């Protein structure tokens, strides 16, 4: 079998460069980059390196979106994920990472167990991915229309794209209501995040000092007390002012 593969490989190697499907080649490039970096996120211990691998994986996924003809979603992936969410994550790393806490090791037993469970899940997902005949047929390569205008109009409640085959004819609803829900959701979430993360400097020195000096059970009780009565602690500096 290896000899046969080598034989066909020699035949294929004699093919001209024009036989290469460049769409598939770039797909392979981005797919391998995305998958390898995603696995590197799992295996890396340093949280800064994990963030770097996550940037590469999400950026390669944006390339996959471009290759699938979803250029608007790919651009949003680059702008929101790579440009926004990951900057947020890196800020989180910078605000919380100190020398003893940058890499928190996982036990080898947990790692092996997670590997087994992950491999089983991956086997099930791959089986189901290859189980449908229609999904395995090679793409016909129909180049679709540009998607930015139809998506923008659909978010305003007007559908200008053609309905998918087999769907009932008639008036189709756009995405005006989900758009409004998501926008209000985003506003609430950002207000809540600002509220949760406010005035954090007044607790940090004391918490570190307590964690460094006392044994864990006492420090946990102390932190619980701090959490309940933030105003009752003497010697703390109210940087952010009273609530």
């Amino acid at each position: 079998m290896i000899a046969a593969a080598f034989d066909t490989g020699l035949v294929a190697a004699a093919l001209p460069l024009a036989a290469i499907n460049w769409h598939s080649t770039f797909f392979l490039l981005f797919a391998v980059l995305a998958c390898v970096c995603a696995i590197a996120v799992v295996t890396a211990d340093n949280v800064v390196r994990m963030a770097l691998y996550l940037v590469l994986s999400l950026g390669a996924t944006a390339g996959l979106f471009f290759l699938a003809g979803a250029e608007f979603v790919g651009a949003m992936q680059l702008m929101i994920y790579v440009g926004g969410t990951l900057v947020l994550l890196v800020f989180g790393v910078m605000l919380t990472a100190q020398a003893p806490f940058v890499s928190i090791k996982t036990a080898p037993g947990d790692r092996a167990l997670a590997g087994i469970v992950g491999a089983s899940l991956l086997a099930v997902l791959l089986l189901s991915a290859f189980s449908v005949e229609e999904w395995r047929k090679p793409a016909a390569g129909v180049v679709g229309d540009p998607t930015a205008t139809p998506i923008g109009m659909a978010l305003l409640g007007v559908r200008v794209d053609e309905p998918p085959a087999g769907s009932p004819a008639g008036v189709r609803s756009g995405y005006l209501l989900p758009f409004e829900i998501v926008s209000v959701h985003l506003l609430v979430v950002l207000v809540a995040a600002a509220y949760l993360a406010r005035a954090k400097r007044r607790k940090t020195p004391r918490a570190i000092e307590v964690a460094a000096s006392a044994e864990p059970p006492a420090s946990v009780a102390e932190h619980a007390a701090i959490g309940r009565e933030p105003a009752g602690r003497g010697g703390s500096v109210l940087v952010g002012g009273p609530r």
Partner: protein
Amino acid sequence: MNPSALVPGGLLAMGLFTEPVSVAHYLVVGAILFTAGVACMAVKRNALGVLMGIELVLNGANVNFVAFASPYLQADGGRGLGLDGQAIALFVILLAAAEAAVALAITLNFYNNHATVDVDRADDLKG
């Protein structure tokens, strides 16, 4: 230029470089991203690592949505899910951003109270 100098002949024989991709190719990538995310959520003791696992899971789901929505990848020349899949992928990206903001604020709060981001130390409510 000889392609055998660029890629191994065995891979060319497998048709990965010469055949057009199918929806199943994208599903494989989505499955690997999803599995890596689940393993990341389960393994990492760093709260930020758990957050990155969630991002990977949502991203794997997005790959599937875009693959099913892409007219380019459909074998029969149909439109697949059409625009709906891409719109859902957009909403998933937005909700992932919102989730990351709140989870990061919670992580910062936890760090301020416990001086660590180790999720194993978050056992205050343990009975």
